[in-house]
């Protein structure tokens, strides 16, 4: 008993005292979390409990990151099919008896409520990487079909909740793994072409909710419905545009402080940031994101095996999707879908799952030097 405890303590101490981290990435994440808390403090109008809650999640996420970073990719790889199966199963459970306002996204485990779809953000690229890593690359049509199925089942379940934003992120993670596996460009062309052709059919299908259609239509003409769906876009653009070069200053953004900007602590927090710190702040923040993505790709490139490479690369590139979709949404060039700005938007599961993902990348980085013949 004592021995077990002592080992656990030892492991924890090692984890914190001698973390296996990529220092530039860790520092960049720390900086990002700092910027996130600063922005949230303003967006939440100095409400202490919101900031404390978010900081707590960051600490929890950081601990998870440290813990995951010590798990060798080999171990992750062996667990992958199980993790994928379990998370997909949970999605089915949620579809059956989940709870949530309007959308069935949440699973209540008594002590904590969480969205199983968040798990897929991690298990999806793991699964695709797992499958492709044992296939001859570049993949052929058959592999593509299998990967397509692996992506489609959870993505459709999530989209049905309905949570188009998360479905998009989950699907993107799988698609990126496929892209990084060296899929031939002509195949990519065929895929893309058929997607474009399928778009009008999907648009009219029952699969797309009317409100989702409205959001896209509203994007094209936000002024047509200034108090309904267009309100978000209009108010967000006003917030961003009125920020100018240098912004209105921290906690001086009138759009968020006076609550003209809806969802200003969560999905639209980027607009708060843009209003208060201006274009200069936006450029610096986007540069920080670009650096994080680049660093993650660099880690992936230097990974020791195909599984780690594909997984790391997919995680890095899906991180980009967050930034792009959220940024596009608040500036009115993409429809309003619920995608948070990573590590800035208020919200528990997102921060924790993101940091866990970075934990995986840290682990890939930490284990790159080990020679492993099983690649």
């Amino acid at each position, binding site marked *: 008993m004592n021995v077990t405890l002592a080992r656990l303590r030892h492991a924890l101490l090692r984890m914190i005292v001698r973390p296996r981290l990529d220092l530039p990435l860790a520092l960049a994440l720390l900086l990002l979390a700092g910027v996130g808390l600063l922005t949230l403090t303003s967006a939440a109008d100095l409400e202490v409990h919101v900031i404390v809650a978010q900081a707590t999640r960051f600490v929890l996420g950081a601990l998870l990151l440290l813990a995951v970073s010590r798990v060798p990719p080999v171990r992750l790889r062996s667990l992958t099919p199980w993790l994928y199966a379990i998370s997909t199963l949970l999605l089915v459970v949620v579809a059956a008896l989940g709870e949530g306002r309007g959308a069935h996204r949440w699973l209540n485990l008594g002590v904590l409520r969480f969205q199983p779809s968040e798990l897929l953000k991690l298990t999806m690229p793991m699964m695709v990487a797992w499958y492709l890593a044992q296939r001859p690359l570049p993949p052929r049509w058959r592999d593509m079909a299998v990967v397509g199925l692996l992506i489609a089942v959870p993505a459709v379940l999530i989209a049905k909740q309905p949570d188009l934003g998360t479905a998009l992120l989950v699907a993107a993670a799988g698609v990126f793994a496929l*892209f990084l596996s060296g899929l031939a460009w002509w195949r990519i062309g065929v895929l893309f072409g058929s997607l474009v052709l399928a778009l009008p059919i999907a648009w009219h299908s029952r699969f797309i909710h009317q409100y989702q259609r409205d959001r896209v239509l509203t994007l094209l003409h936000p002024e047509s419905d200034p108090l309904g769906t267009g309100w978000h876009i209009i108010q967000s653009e006003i917030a961003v545009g009125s920020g100018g070069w240098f912004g209105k200053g921290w906690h001086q953004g009138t759009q968020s402080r006076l609550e003209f900007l809806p969802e200003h602590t969560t999905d639209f927090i980027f607009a708060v940031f843009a209003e208060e710190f201006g274009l200069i702040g936006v450029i610096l923040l986007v540069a920080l994101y670009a650096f994080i993505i680049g660093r993650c790709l660099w880690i992936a490139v230097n990974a020791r095996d195909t599984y780690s490479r594909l997984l790391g690369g997919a995680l890095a590139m899906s991180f980009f999707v967050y930034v792009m979709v959220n940024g596009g949404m608040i500036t009115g060039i993409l429809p309003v879908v619920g995608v948070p700005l990573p590590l800035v938007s208020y919200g528990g599961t997102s921060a924790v799952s993101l940091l866990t993902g970075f934990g995986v990348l840290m682990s890939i980085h930490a284990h790159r030097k080990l020679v492993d013949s099983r690649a």
Partner: protein
Amino acid sequence: MLRRPALKDPRREHASFRARAWIGYALILLALSGLLARFFWLQVVQHQEFVTRANANRIRLVYLPPPRGLIYDRNGVLLADNVPAYRLEVVPERVPHMQAMLQQLAQVVPLSAEDLRRFRDELAQQRPFQSVPLRLKLSEDEIARFAINQWRFPGVAVVPYLMRNYPQGKLFAHVLGYVGRIDENEQARLDPELYAGTLQIGKSGIERQYETLLHGKPGYELVEVNVDQRPLRVLERVPPTPGRNLYLSIDARLQQAGEAAFAGRPGAAVAIDPRNGQVLALVSVPSYDPNLFVSGISDADYRALLDDPDKPLLNRALRGLYPPGSTVKPYLALGGLELGLRTPQDTVDSTGEFYLPGQKRGYRDDQRGGVGRVAMVQAIEQSVNTYFYKLALDMGIDRLATWMGRFGFGRPSGIDLPAEASGVLPSPAWKRATFHQPWYLGETVIAGIGQGYWVVTPLQLAHALATLADHGVARAPRLLLAEQSGMGAPRVPAPPAPVTPSFATSVPDWDTVVQGMVGVVNGDKGTARGLGVGFPYPIAGKTGTAERYSRTTSAYDTHLTNAQLAARHRALFECFTPAADPRIAVVVVLEHGAWGGSAAAPIARRILDAWARERGLPDTPLTQAPPG
């Protein structure tokens, strides 16, 4: 065909991955640059546009309507003020279902059909974010009930405001007029800047005449609001400039005395200070409560006022049209002297009947059989018709009209009140223009005793009387005495009324006429004899009783009883005092009075008594009613 199983090639896979990763990163950087370009477009290129819209979001311009100026009488008695009140206002864009909201609200706070109609009218005119008043003048009970239920009615609020109040009620309604809700026509004509936030405007009387003085200038507040339009802080405040306080020449005690003297009988009285044209009293009976109009009069109340046979809404002093009857005689007599047609000593034989040469139609004296030979003074004193029939004939209608016109007959007196009637000064020109008919000599005869086409308003008569009393100096009657920029500020006297220089050429002539008028009150045979009993100054007066004659025949209409006659007759009385140095001129018209001397004159005396009392003169009420 042999299909070679693909083999894993770690090195190639690594190289392929590296290439894909950097291509992917390049695409990512490209996409992020595109995103930044969008930010540049919004934050730099369109920056100004969005700054404007952000400010439009958060800053509301709230107009602060100016408190309306107060109105006092000449001694500082409050006639119109503002009292705090509360009204319900609705911001249309904050109400999801207007119809349902109004129905539910009506169960909490009573809303009349009139309120709803007015609200809908205004709703159609206003922008959706501007609040529209729904109910004025909430009671404390209603405010409390609404406060409990407020959460059910987003976009509806109780708003304090200043409500016009007339503490004297109906006593001054025909002087002050009233304020009411600004209607569509007024809205179109008013300066929107000046009336921003103001609900009411002077509709009649002084309130309308001096609207520009009373209104003031609105201030404003720039208020920062949140998305619920809740004001958070005031960014800038410019206080309103209150309207100017007005002091009227009216003396509330004279007004009171005059009104009381009518005892509810329809009629009008006007008192003017001949020395300066200041109106001391302007009474029209019956009257109405102007407070009813302030918050929007109900249909029922309004209909009751309109349907009242005594027409309380009619301002009889300004717009009541009456044949002047014998009250014109002093002016005519003066004309006879001034035009050289008569000397004071010339006499006329009154036989009771007067005939034009070659006509059978007779013109009657008041007394059967006449009063015998009379000179001018007796003619005025006893109101001898024959004397004036002849005088009018000698003068001729053209000279008569010109002369009487100098006293202001036939045109508005120029008082500072809106909607004054002109009356009719008969002349061939007027008759041609009105009826396209020639003038007949007989019409000249009856014009000499104020009958026929003659129509005057009590105010016109008072104006003429004041002109007579002041020896031919015609001053437009004035109600505004002084104005004041705020409580305690110095009173700024109003500019004097327009004056035309005296047209009198011989002062002794005027004194002769005044002597006749003094005889009316003090002579043995005066038509208002006894009226001056106990009064400290000599009073000069003249009675008038219009429409004594049947219109259709020249005979006494013996079929009518006295009461019926009384109902048809207008009793008039004009007087000024002190006779030698007039300081007050009073005209009284009583619609249902039988005789000028007995019915109208006592009302004038009551006003004079109040005037004398105010000057510390012995208070000796009239004890003996003068005979008719």
